[in-house]
């Protein structure tokens, strides 16, 4: 059954709200709350991106990642920030996630949606005037559960081959450097 235009708009709005809420939690440093939005079978991946000729594809690696976490891995990062010793993010970065271009398709599982969105992350830290501006695209599976929408998987693509500035570029595509 093809969704009506109204249904499509509502669905997209619902997914946007989820992503905007997610971004707010990250920007506000509410990482435990953010973790609640993750399904327990989540896989969160940022493939390494290489510079390749057009004929050889988009350059997203299939064999190496910058980030490859399951729920336990993400949870570890949240717990790490709770210790007083996460030097890399203490003092914390000032981060703003700008989420846009949200596109929703039906997913393969029941109650799942394939959601693509663009991300622009602004980041600044310490008393340096310099900032990172990272652009990426997320390919998410968002799942409708009894407790609400949950992030079931995320693949972050269209990043750059060499990350610049501090070592943090990567982790800004989702939680702050953990």
């Amino acid at each position, binding site marked *: 059954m093809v969704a009506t235009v109204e249904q499509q708009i509502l669905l997209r709005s619902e997914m946007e709200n989820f992503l905007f809420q997610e971004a707010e939690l990250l920007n506000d440093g509410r990482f435990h709350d953010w973790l609640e939005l993750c399904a327990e079978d989540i896989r969160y991946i*940022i493939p*390494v991106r*290489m*510079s*390749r*000729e057009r004929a*050889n594809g988009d350059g997203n*690696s299939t*064999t*190496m*990642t*910058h*980030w*490859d*976490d399951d729920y*336990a*891995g993400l*949870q*570890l*990062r949240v*717990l*790490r920030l709770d*210790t007083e*010793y*996460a*030097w*890399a*993010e203490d003092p914390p970065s000032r981060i703003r996630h700008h989420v846009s271009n949200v596109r929703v398709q039906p997913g393969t599982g029941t109650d799942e949606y394939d959601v693509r969105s663009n991300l622009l992350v602004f980041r600044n830290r310490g008393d340096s005037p310099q900032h990172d501006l990272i652009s990426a695209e997320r390919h998410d599976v968002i799942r409708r559960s009894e407790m609400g929408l949950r992030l079931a998987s995320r693949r972050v693509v269209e990043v750059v*081959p*060499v*990350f*610049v*500035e*501090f*070592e*943090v*570029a*990567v*982790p800004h595509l989702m939680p702050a*450097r*953990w």
Partner: protein
Amino acid sequence: MSIVGDKNDIQQLIAAGQESLAKGRLPAGLVANAEVHKLEAQRVFGTCWQFLAHETEVPEAGDYVVRYLGGGSIIVVRGEDGEVRAMANSCRHRGTQLCRTEMGNTSHFRCPYHGWTYRNTGTLAGVPAQKEVYGVEMDKNEWSLTQVPRLENYGGLIFGCLDEKAAPLVDYLGDMAWYLDLITKKTQGGLEVRGEPQRWIIDSNWKLGADNFVGDAYHTLMTHRSAVELGLAPPDPKFASQPAHISLSNGHGLGVLGVPPGQPMPPFMNYPREVVDGLAEAYGDQDHADMLQGTAFIHGTIFPNLSFLNVLIGKDNKSMPVPMLTFRLWRPLSHDAMEVWSWFLVEKDADEEFKQQSYETYVRTFGISGVFEQDDAETWRSITAGTQGLLAGSQMLNFEMGMGVLTSDDTWKGPGRPLSSGYAERNQREFWGRLLELLTDTGDDASETGPQLRAQPLTGADEVA
């Protein structure tokens, strides 16, 4: 901001550094110094052997990767004849880059500017309109891609050197070769690189990474304290202080740290049974196998800028610890920035399940987003910034650890000069000492004879008699 002015100032600072290192002190102004950076470009990176690629990154004929040497782009390619070569990524006509991507496979390199075409061995195969405008007499042999003058392979690791007269790689490595065997020859099939290297830039001087990996087990407790609190590393403050810290030649050094007595760690770094059973045969001797049995982790640096870490570690606080191996190249960009290249390697012959676990462990602990790696970078950035300025730049830094206190480990079964504690700084002193030796005007003149191999420690005896 550099605290030194003209050329004489920097040579004075270098001389002061050589003198003070003998007493275990280093002038902070040398750490992230723009003048030092300029000197290093020729005197260190123009003369020493440096890592380019692992042979498994270019497995088939025509495979190439683009790397860096001496500040320029280099093609590392396996030719149609099966030989691996390295050459300047630069057309002999006008200097155009032939490879404008990081990796690929090709039988010929063709320049996009005028179409000059080279075989993947580097020889010039074709020049458009040659007969008409260059003449049949054009000797194409004169116009091959410029080869890296020295290229040698040890244990699958391909090194290049821009100094034609450099000693063979195996002599340059000295006893480091024995320890490279420990890491790379656990199985008959040897290692393979899995995936592509991660690359990232940190606003830190390159030497801080090399210094950390050459001898710093001392930092594990504090820098990685968050990991300790999460149960990823033992809470024992002396966990990483088991013998031995081993000093080698030419500025190389490593730590092969033992399992503390009473610590419930699996032997042989928890490598799979099939690997452990075949160790002595793969190594070709029992000594390497015996050493691996009691080892917790191995960290080291091959001067100047290749480091490695082979460690048994858990990817999270719920999983069994799994061994993983990473190699690091600290590429200097400026006095206060470096590009880090990080490779993950694993035994070719191991089963897929082990490889997957080892890969996950690597990415989560010591890759670019690793929960351990992040905090290391934070301290190195902080040192780069913290040694700037007139005041901090003028201070002496304490590199005295172990001097007059630690003794040689006479039970150590491997080569080199081992100290009886993993908490030591002799490797760091010798790393910086070797660096200063290469930089000094009055020392080895690289343009004439090439830097002399250094077998004896530079920084004076620091063992208890």
